[in-house]
């Protein structure tokens, strides 16, 4: 049943996918496909946009209107699509480097506008595709191919970043906690406004290899061991949550007006003026 559901929205003829064995990206794709099914969305009404990276290959496997753009710019392309046709469900999948380094500017501004897009970051804390260079989310001290002595840059907390920028739905999940991930994706898809999910995931080939987390399964256990529900963390001391990754829903604001709706009001005003 689960497999059938995923297959329904999958371009099965495009398989096998390009991802490494043990890569977390496929789990996020699976959760997205199941969410489309749960919501009963029409394939013709779904647009999936990505940037460049291993995560960028995701749309190619989805039987929808799919757009694989340039590195970091997916949200800007998606903004144009949503503006022109607000009836479409526009989902944007990005890598951590994609979304928060080269695309950081687009992320904060899409969030600030509260345009009705769902942004999902496949956050493996590394540049997977280009060979394991450090990203803005690589933890302090972790190894990367461009941080052979350990990363000395403090990392972004993407949840904090999205909230600070004004996103109206913000959550974090992991590709280990699949059921939670699926639930948040559905909530994000249903949310009217800019929704953002930071998905903590694995790249055994680059992050795991460089940080001596040997097998793909150990990488997945790393997610399990590091993640802690936000509700639980609230009852814990700062020492206890140090080095942990908080998961949960951080914001769900239904009050703030959505951008394309506000623009429609401008059109109503401007067309009246013309007459």
């Amino acid at each position: 049943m689960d497999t059938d559901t995923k297959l329904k929205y999958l371009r099965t003829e495009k398989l096998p996918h390009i991802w490494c064995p043990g890569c977390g990206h496929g789990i996020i794709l699976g959760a997205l496909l199941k969410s489309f099914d749960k919501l009963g969305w029409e394939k013709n009404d779904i647009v999936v946009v990505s940037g460049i990276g291993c995560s960028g290959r995701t749309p190619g496997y989805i039987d929808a209107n799919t757009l694989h753009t340039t590195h970091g710019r997916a949200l800007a392309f998606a903004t144009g699509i949503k503006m022109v046709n607000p009836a479409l469900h526009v989902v944007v999948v990005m890598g951590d480097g994609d979304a928060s380094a080269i695309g950081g500017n687009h992320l904060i501004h899409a969030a600030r506008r509260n345009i009705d897009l769902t942004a999902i970051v496949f956050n493996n804390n590394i540049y997977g595709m280009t060979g394991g260079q450090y990203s803005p989310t690589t933890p302090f001290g972790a190894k990367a191919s461009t941080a052979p002595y350990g990363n000395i840059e403090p990392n972004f907390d993407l949840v904090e970043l999205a909230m600070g920028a004004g996103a109206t739905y913000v959550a974090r999940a992991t590709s280990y906690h699949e059921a939670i991930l699926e639930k948040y994706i559905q909530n994000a898809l249903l949310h009217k406004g800019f929704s953002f999910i930071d998905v903590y995931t694995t790249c055994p080939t680059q992050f795991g290899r460089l940080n001596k987390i040997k097998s793909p399964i150990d990488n997945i256990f790393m997610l399990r061991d590091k993640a802690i529900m936000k509700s639980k963390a609230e009852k814990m001391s700062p020492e206890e949550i140090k080095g942990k990754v908080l998961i949960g829903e951080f914001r769900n604001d239904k009050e703030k007006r959505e951008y394309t709706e506000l623009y429609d009001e401008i059109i109503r005003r401007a067309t009246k003026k013309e007459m």
Partner: protein
Amino acid sequence: MSNAKLVQGDIACAMGAIDAGCRFFAGYPITPASDIAEEMSKLLPMVGGKFIQMEDEIASMAAIIGGSLAGAKSMTATSGPGFSLKQENLGFAIMAEIPTVVVNVQRGGPSTGLPTLPSQSDMMQARWGTHGDHEIIAIIPYTVEEVYYETIRAFNLAEMLRTPVILLMDEVIGHMSENFKRPDKSKIEIINRKFPTKTPEEYFPYDENEGLVPPLAPFGKGYRYHVTGLAHDKTGFPSTHEESVKRLMERMRDKILNNRAIIDKCDIRKEGNEEIGIFAYGSSARTSIEAIDNLKEKGIDVALMRPVTIWPFPKEQLLEFAKGLKKIVVPEMNFGQIVGEVKKYLSDDVEIIPLNKYTGRLITPEEIVDKILEG
């Protein structure tokens, strides 16, 4: 002229865009192109279209590609530094074959350069600014009226050929006011992109069997397909297969080069008795015309070739123009970007004389006259 009004070049560009059917504009403020964005922000919602001021020029270019894919004729407008920022996504529009119009109101550079002064120094950036081998269409009008009509033509070419089209102006053309009468809608030819005639099951977004320009289905109309900047086959999915890459590259080249009959446009003013010619475009063509009038009074006949479409370069028209001419003066507000092209195609029998100014000042008619008299 009845009903003619004083109109600025930038405003005429916005009017042309609206009349061409542009319904989405994304931009980022920059002198001397901001007036286009301001006008579009006012006009678009009046016709049910949409305007957005993005966070930068990279995003603006990305947004109009998205808007075009969703089915709206889309445009952005910028100047020098912003034009540089658009280059990566301009290449995406070329590769993915998404119709878009990109306006560059040229100002002096490099870098922030001369924000309020004219220049023609992005002629080569328009040609080769984005990475990778490609053909490109670039148009350079010289009056306010021509800005209006050429903006419409830029949209027509973009939609007809599924490609970005660059409209080059400069600070003088953008900011000057001239008498202009907006024509009746019935008088202008509007060309829309081809919608697929095939069913979604039979449709391929890059199908060579559909000719050099396969129809483009807007997202959301039941044709689910993939778009990527990677080399792709007819389905739109990535392919590095040599034969398929070759076919893609050649089709994208040929759709421009084999359609020159509709792309090319040249204003040639030649009686046949002249021994001297001027090859000039944009603002420099305006002063060239004045110089030609002055020389006529002195009894010297000078011919003019004014390319309106500058890329692809009008090689055949130049060869024809050069017949019988002993020398050709090429005035440009740059170090001599287009004169190199002129030289490339002409034999040594014709003397080619560059006249260059790169100080943000227009080349004056006197300077052109002097150049001709001294030579």
